[in-house]
């Protein structure tokens, strides 16, 4: 029965969004209840799917029961399940944080939010390159709406850049898909993985072009330098809950890189084996260094968090680029914890904003300024990678995995030095924010939206849990990496079609 549950992370948000738009258009309170309940169910389903994938089995859902290489399929493996749990967690916390504050500043916040979850979950589950494109578009078009939610000229201007770069990205994605289809004749990922090693000599160059064009698209999504410039203005000018959810969108790019370049163009891809690896480590290093320098120059908390996000994507890309099992396991652990940390940081930046004054007094919480400062300290420590939090463990694992790599000296230097610079940036901004702010010394009483604060505390608790439970979590990540490095199992489980084609011509 697990098989039919695989489609639920898509069906639930799609149905919820439709109900929200059609039936509950006029009652914000009803929208809130349905949206939160739906997000909670999605989280629960994601945990259930994670449990069913935890034994290492790979199960596929055939839409319309078309046999595997011909129909549309959804595939659940350890990696997809992990990412689903992450998006379920963020969906639940962020939608709750938005209630009473940001969801009333424009219409259809909850419907857009559910469509965004549909796109994210779909991108994680799909087993087909063209459907990856479709789900990218679903999550993008919802993110355009969420990004512009609340209006304002700054958002309009940044939004135009965001939409334009992503439209160009979609076009490049289609070119890449076209080239790959023209050469291999299939777009099913498992089928591609089986056929890419057998591509004839004369077509290898064309296929490599397609593979690298695809990498460009994922580089845009994951904010890889030099395609990162759209991220800080976009995330910096959107509403904090939207930015908190967008923290996972860069990871959708990273997920796609992991999926495509371990499964299709991985170690067993014949002449195209590990085609992305020579690009990922240098690009990751560049992203890390430039993101860190920009973070040092940041003039506001939000700006600092945006560039720190670019820097953390650099670290993640380096770990992926090691293309070893240990590197991949470290990358997954780092990706999960940094998504949670950045979601918390974006919520915190929203709490610190002078603009967060629209809530009714009943939904506000009066806080000592030191509480927010302590939250900032914890999240900053996790982001920079100071012990004892998960960020430290993530970076340590990446450094450890890099020991086997030929570029170990550069990678170690870059990660350690940028961590120090990030420490300086976060400390400087923290000092100016909390100690020498324009309103004098800190222990001022601040009034903040209650739910956003509570959800930020939940995210901090998750970071703490990820640090405490690092052993078991890492065991799971290592098993995930092992599964990814053995694409034969994936190909075998997907292509063995439960309903054999009848007749045939």
């Amino acid at each position: 029965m697990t098989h039919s549950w695989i489609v639920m992370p898509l069906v639930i948000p799609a149905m919820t969004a439709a109900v929200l738009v059609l039936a509950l258009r006029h009652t914000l309170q009803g929208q809130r209840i349905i949206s939160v309940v739906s997000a909670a169910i999605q989280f629960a389903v994601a945990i259930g799917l994670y449990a069913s994938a935890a034994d290492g089995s790979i199960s596929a859902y055939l839409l319309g029961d078309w046999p595997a290489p011909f129909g549309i399929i959804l595939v659940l493996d350890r990696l997809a399940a992990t990412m689903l749990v992450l998006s379920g967690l963020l969906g639940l916390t962020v939608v709750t944080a938005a209630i009473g504050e940001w969801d009333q500043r424009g219409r259809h916040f909850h419907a857009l939010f559910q469509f965004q979850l549909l796109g994210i979950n779909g991108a994680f589950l799909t087993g087909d390159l063209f459907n990856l494109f479709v789900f990218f578009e679903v999550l993008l078009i919802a993110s355009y709406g969420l990004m512009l939610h609340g209006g304002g000229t700054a958002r309009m201007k940044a939004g135009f850049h965001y939409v334009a770069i992503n439209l160009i990205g979609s076009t490049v994605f289609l070119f890449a898909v076209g080239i790959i289809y023209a050469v291999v004749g299939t777009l099913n990922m498992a089928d591609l993985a089986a056929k890419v090693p057998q591509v004839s000599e004369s077509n290898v160059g064309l296929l490599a072009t397609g593979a690298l064009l695809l990498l460009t698209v994922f580089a845009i999504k994951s904010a890889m330098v030099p395609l990162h410039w759209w991220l800080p203005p976009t995330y910096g000018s959107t509403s904090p809950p939207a930015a908190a959810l967008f923290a996972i969108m860069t990871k959708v790019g990273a997920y796609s890189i992991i999926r495509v370049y371990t499964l299709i163009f991985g170690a067993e891809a014949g002449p195209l084996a590990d085609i992305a690896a020579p690009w990922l480590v240098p690009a990751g290093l560049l992203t890390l260094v430039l993101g860190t320098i920009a973070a040092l120059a940041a003039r506001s908390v939000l700006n600092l968090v945006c560039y720190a996000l670019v820097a953390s994507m650099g670290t993640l890309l380096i770990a992926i680029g090691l293309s070893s099992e240990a590197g991949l396991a470290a990358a997954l652990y780092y990706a999960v914890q940094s998504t949670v940390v950045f979601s918390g940081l974006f919520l915190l930046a929203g709490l610190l904003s002078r603009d967060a004054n629209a809530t009714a007094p009943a939904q506000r919480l009066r806080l000592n300024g030191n509480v927010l400062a302590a939250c900032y300290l914890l999240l900053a420590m996790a982001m920079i990678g100071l012990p004892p939090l998960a960020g430290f463990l993530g970076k340590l694992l990446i450094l450890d995995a890099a020991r086997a790599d030929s570029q170990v000296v550069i990678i170690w230097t870059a990660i350690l030095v940028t961590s120090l610079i990030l420490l300086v940036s976060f400390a400087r901004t923290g000092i100016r924010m909390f100690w020498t702010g324009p309103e004098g010394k800190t222990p001022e009483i601040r009034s903040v939206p209650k739910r956003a604060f509570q959800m930020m505390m939940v995210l901090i608790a998750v970071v703490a849990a990820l640090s405490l439970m690092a052993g078991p979590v890492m065991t799971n990540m290592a098993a995930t990496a092992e599964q990814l490095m053995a694409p034969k199992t994936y190909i075998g489980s997907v292509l063995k079609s439960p309903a054999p084609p009848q007749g045939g011509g």
Partner: protein
Amino acid sequence: MSMEFLMATGIGALTSVGLYLILQWRTFPVVVGLSFLSYAVNVFLFTMGRLTINQPPIVNTEASGYTDPLPQALVLTAIVITFGMTALIVVLSLRAYLETGDDGVAVEPPRPDASGTDRTPIGPGGEATR
């Protein structure tokens, strides 16, 4: 050969026009450029199943060969999606033009003298507008 040549030059021309227009200052040429790029990719997707004439797409006992029906499905999806996206970006650039009175693509740096924004340089940025 001639049809391949025609398709290739057509796609090349559409792409280069699109690229040129995307690099312009104003939003209108950028939007038109994006449309040109999406036309280019639509035609490109058509050719990815190889150019064949007068062949059936589905199984037929009298057929001497087949044309690939899948690119048509993909092109249709791509057309619908890019059409929706283009509509969105048109509305977005119109809104941005009407609200700011300026259809430039560049984001203006904040002016230090405007309405005291310089007073709190370390406030969380980007939230000044409603």
